[in-house]
């Protein structure tokens, strides 16, 4: 009985609360297929791929917003005998949107490759920009973003010179509900001081709510 009353009270409160929250909050679940290509100066090039899943969220207030994302998955060798490894990737970015179609962002990016021989962790401070625009009214919007590291470090191996990348994607909003879906192609490349590269790209599908 008490549970039923609480549920009813929750329903009554949830609708207006949700209407308020979805203006400021956005959250989604991500899943995608990624490919990692390493090309060290000395050693064997590796190509690994796998599926990653994760989530993302943002908290917006007027022109300022805070974005966070997390994903993880297991990468296995496409060919050869490269050791499989787990990928863990997370970002925390602060963004300012001076105009509706442009956002400038900066923040921390952490990425780890966890293998049997140990964990290789990349840590960067990044800055980037994101351009957004409508494709079909306000229901379908496109975005393109680019970023580059301001500082980069790695815990093992050759020092990291920089990390740069970008993404392009399309977001679909339901007309009368704060629900959205997104398809994004993302690519970034880390370059070590000795000239080696490490490229991670893939296509990410996401579904979420809020942000309108």
């Amino acid at each position, binding site marked *: 009985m008490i549970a039923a009353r609480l549920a009813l009270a929750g329903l009554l409160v949830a609708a207006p609360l949700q209407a308020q929250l979805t203006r400021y909050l956005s959250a989604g679940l991500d899943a995608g297929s990624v490919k990692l290509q390493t090309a060290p100066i000395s050693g064997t090039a590796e190509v690994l791929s796998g599926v990653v899943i994760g989530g993302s969220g943002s908290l917006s207030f007027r022109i300022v917003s805070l974005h966070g994302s997390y994903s993880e998955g297991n990468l296995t060798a496409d060919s050869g005998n490269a050791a499989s490894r787990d990928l863990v990737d997370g970002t925390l970015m602060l963004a300012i949107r001076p105009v509706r179609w442009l956002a400038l962002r900066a923040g921390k990016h952490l990425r780890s490759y966890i293998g049997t021989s140990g964990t290789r962790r990349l840590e960067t401070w990044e800055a980037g920009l994101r351009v957004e625009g409508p494709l079909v009214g306000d229901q379908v919007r496109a975005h393109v973003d680019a970023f580059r590291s301001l500082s980069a470090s790695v815990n093992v191996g050759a020092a990291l010179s920089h990390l740069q990348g970008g*993404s392009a994607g399309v977001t679909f909003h339901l007309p009368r509900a704060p629900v959205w879906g997104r398809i994004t*192609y993302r*690519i970034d490349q880390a370059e070590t001081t000795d000239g080696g590269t490490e490229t991670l790209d893939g296509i990410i599908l996401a579904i979420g709510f809020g942000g309108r």
Partner: protein
Amino acid sequence: MARRLAGLFVALVLAGPATARAQSAADLLARGIRATHDLEFDSAAVWLRRAMSRPAPAALSDADRSRAMMYLGATEFFRDRRDSATAVFRRLIVADPRFRPDLLVFPPEVTTLFNEARLGTRAAAAAVPARTDIAGPGDRLVIRLYGSSIHDVTAVVSRYFGGTAGVAVRTLYSGALGDSLEVLWDGRDSSGIPADSGNYILRVASLGQDRRVVRTVEIPLAISSIRRDTVPWPLPPADSLLRPERTTGGGGTRSLVMGLVTAGAAIALPAMVAPDASASAGRYLVAGTATVAGIIGMLRARSPRPIPENVAANQQLRATWQRQADQVRADNEARRREARVTIVASPARVVESR
């Protein structure tokens, strides 16, 4: 009887026409009454008829005229002219339905005959104040109806044009009238609107047993009605204030450009970021999605479609005007119902039906 006639003749000869003309109607009435009391009924009848025939301004007052007719009826009764007495009484009742004989003056035979005549005569009288001002909700024209006997009457106010009654404005009463009745009129027509200025007539009709009008009392009414001015109707929103509710069908290039830019970025990003790497083919899926969406967006933008913000803004503008119009309508309705009505009544007259 012969002696009485002779005496009357002598009196008339002695008095002479010139003397009679010099006497006032009141004197003639007094003589007639005195002659009646002296049982000189023939001479009394002459004096009384002469008193009643005096023209204005020497004519009898209404009360004296009623009194003279009562004495004349009694005189005729005592002269064994019962039909003539009844006719006189009927004339008296029609002229003054409220009149009742003094039981101390007239013997029961006379009063009985009077009452028989009264009960057989359907006559009504109406008394209206000479002037009535209706300024507030509680103000009314008070019409007092008096009946000679119980019978049905109708009291109707009509427009009065060129000496004839026109359209009925309001039926004030329709039903039985006993001794007396008070009817009120608020100066409005049957729909509640104050009567326009002009000439009206109040007609109180006495109905016979066959529901036909026997006789009518008519009271001319002069009405002056002062109404408040109505507020002008608000103008509807001008076209210049209304926003376009549909797109013109132009544009859409921005959607296409955005789609193509996104598609190009998805395809070109690997070359810009990692030229030496083999990029995933999934980027073509994103590029294709962005291109298709851009084309759809362009086509959609080029076909006219409603602009919800403008539609809502225009609806609000029209709703605001509608509220103002409704307010003005209600205000004007109230103003039309508010009026200061002055009713001036003229003396009543009795119209016998044929």
